[in-house]
């Protein structure tokens, strides 16, 4: 199994994510420069957190045109593997239209960094199958533009297909509609989440719920022929 962590100018969680996959979980992982387009050799592609292109104009608005993101279209179309966007990565995926909706300025208009509680809304997915349905988990967030919004019909679809994976529990830190914190696409191979699993993957930093998310993806990939991933 081989994983890629994409590096855009301005990415700043690339090394953190690489450390969890490569050093903690022992997955063969490459840091992949944003200009690279041959991504087929990877079973897992992570778009890490940070401020690609400074988040100028809108978070993800410039990065979405990067060659590597363009290449993702085909990668997803042929169900080659799993794509995970964390925080800024999530923003890039929505801007690119690879995930529905948009991530806008926090309702407070301020950046917010804290650990939040999340509720597992669907545990039958590659990202969440190590959690119980309805389980409350803890993960850090750190973003200024994490308020998820989408047209009513999109929200309907997300609910119908159970594409909403995590919601903020108790406090809704950024004002996301329906407290949405993580979603996936129809194919069940593209995932976006605002919380940072890589920041809670060691005992030093708390529950370790973050590590479970990476472990879930890896087991999923190991157990299923990457070419025909279970979809949900």
């Amino acid at each position: 199994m081989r994983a890629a962590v994409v590096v855009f100018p301005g990415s700043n969680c690339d090394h953190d994510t690489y450390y969890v996959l490569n050093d903690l979980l022992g997955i063969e992982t490459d840091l992949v420069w944003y200009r690279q387009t041959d991504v087929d050799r990877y079973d897992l592609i992570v778009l890490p957190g940070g401020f690609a292109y400074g988040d100028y104009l809108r978070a993800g608005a410039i990065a979405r045109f990067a060659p590597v993101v363009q290449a993702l279209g085909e990668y997803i179309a042929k169900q080659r593997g799993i794509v995970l966007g964390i925080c800024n990565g999530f923003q890039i995926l929505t801007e690119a239209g690879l995930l529905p909706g948009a991530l806008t300025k926090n309702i407070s208009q301020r950046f917010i960094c804290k650990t939040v509680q999340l509720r597992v809304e669907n545990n039958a997915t590659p990202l969440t199958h190590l959690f119980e349905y309805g389980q409350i988990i803890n993960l850090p967030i750190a973003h200024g533009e994490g308020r998820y919004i989408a047209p009513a019909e999109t929200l309907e679809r997300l609910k119908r297909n159970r594409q909403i994976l995590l919601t903020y529990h108790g406090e809704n830190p950024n004002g996301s509609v329906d407290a949405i914190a993580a979603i996936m696409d129809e194919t069940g191979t593209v995932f976006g989440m605002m919380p940072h699993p890589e920041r809670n993957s060691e005992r030093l930093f708390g529950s370790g719920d973050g590590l479970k998310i990476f472990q879930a993806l890896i087991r999923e990939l190991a157990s299923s022929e990457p070419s025909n991933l279970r979809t949900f």
Partner: protein
Amino acid sequence: MHGLSEKEYETILKRLGRQPTEVELGLFALNWSEHCSYKSSKRFLKLLPTAGKRVLQGPGENAGVVEVANDWCVAFKVESHNHPSAVEPFHGAATGVGGIIRDILSMGARPIALLDSLRFGEQSRQLFTGVVAGIAHYGNCVGIPTVGGDIYFEEAYTDNCLVNVMCVGLLKRSELKRAIAQGVGNRILLVGARTGRDGIHGATFASEDLIGETAKKRPNVQVGDPFTAKSLIEATLEVCQFPELIGLQDLGAGGLSTAPAEMAARGGVGIAIDIEEIPLREESMTPYEILLSESQERMVLCVKSGSEQKFIRVYRKWGLEAAVIGEVIAERVYRVRHEGRTIAEVPIELLVGGVPEVDSFPSPPSLALSRPNPLAPFPLGEGSGERSWPASLKKLLQTPTIGSKRWVWEQYDHTVQTNTVIGPGSHDAAVLRVKGERFGIAVTMGGNGRYCQIDPYEGGIRAVCEGVHNLVSVGAEPLGITDCLNFANPTDPEVLWAFEQTIKGMAEAARAFELPFVSGNVSFYNQSEQRKIYPTPMVGMVGFVRDIEKRVPMGFAREGDRIYLVGKLEGKSGGSEYLKVFYNFGGGELEPTDLAVERALLQAMLALAERGLLRSAHDVSEGGLLVALAEKSIASGLGAQLELWDLSEETLFGEWPSRFVVTVAPGNEDALKEFVEGAGVPYRWLGVVGGDSLEMSGEKIAVQELVRAYESALRGIIAREP
């Protein structure tokens, strides 16, 4: 003219033996500005101890470096951005962050943490929120966690806020770089952002009082670009691996008129640059403007001739500018050429460090001073007794200076890089792990100006001790100091006196702990027509946590743990927050610090932590004993039954040095006593951890209520919309 004094101009004429050109005058104006030359402070800074067995790089480079363990070293320094922040809080603070990051980068270190110490007036909402937003904007985007600092609200800072930022970097011993140019024929590269008309004369601006004219003749506000800065960090760390890299230096205040000259001075060589090679942001900039520009996110590199392309390629890959703008020459001059013509040529020795030192004499304040008289009596009595301790405690917790700064640090990304084991909010110092190592690094920064206003010498001592206390509280051994000295106009003999006294105090304390000052910064002219700031030394410190698992928490750990005060129960409590809040009195007499006791305390506390005997520890500082206890409750949600007989306000809320509140597990009382007695330090049983409220002498207050008070402290300032 150009902010040069008569005497300085004379010196230039004499040493140059001719009239300087306009451009040369510009060069002198910047290199000889207080900000860049330290002409008023040098002779006093010499008093600070700088040697130590762990010191790899002391003052004189862009940052200091100390060795930690297993070849790992930390580079750290603090820098002020007071005047720019007073003019434009958001960008002023943001570029302050950017500047200090590049100082750390210049040492070849990866920046791993930021801290900021801020001082505002009691009503300065816009400055406060603007500065915080600016720090968040820049720090969050460059991906360096902001893990600590402190904030005071005090009238003295109303017209002249203080924004001091400290950056800490990590490097291996072998990766250490210097800001040096050497080897005739080697190339000088300018990398990063393009050069524009930013902040021209910023350094001279920082070297005058912030009054009428100065306030008006603002340089163009410098706008920071954290995105470019992030790319600059990554690209620069990449080229730091190239053996052809000889030296590098950030462009700070002074821009191209100072940086190359400083590098040449260190290398004992000269440098010639060609103006037309410099990538510009706007055409039609004059050579004068180009040299004096303070555009951000730029660095100068000296590289082996022939290897230029290798370096340029890396910066281009990161979307940055990189151009060969000059070369190292044998003649020890800074030569500036424009289209083949030499438009400036000044001896390096004259330009760098050639400025005549200012020798005005410090003199102690006359008794006629309106400032709080150090000998004023402690006005106890009036009001005392009327208030029950829970009410007083709540009121203190609600003051912005003591209360929670959550609203601030939750806007800072303090967990990026996944090393933050102890972040902001609930501890005396932050603790970072080093991936793959057992040890950790503790960092802290702060300083109490009111103490220095009353007694700069004692205040200087306390500034250093406070840093030591903060590190020791988390179980860290102090390794080295960086400092930022914020003062008013140094041509005022009383200001200079306070400056000297503060440094003497800091030096005295540092010697007692055998701690070196490895870097720092001086910021003068912090005053307006109405007000001078308090003499305010900010002390930043780095500490060594031998085993990260043995770090000590601040909050109460378990029900039943025994609570002790280590240190004196009584003392003089001038300068305390209590006097300020309840008597609106900023004076009083300071209890002198006994450095022998401090030394012993340090040893005892470290030994206790080392043996895992401390269930929790917290130093007693602003707000005194009861506030320290309350903070331990707030941090943990656990209450305590306290047994104090003397309930005088002075005992409960007074501030004097050398005190910790610690807890130990039942059964470990004797072990504690042994170490503390052995150190010859007084100590006292305070009570037992337990319940959900603080109880004492029949009165109590719920921890929840303490939390509510504590967390509401900043509301008054923030709520003052807009």
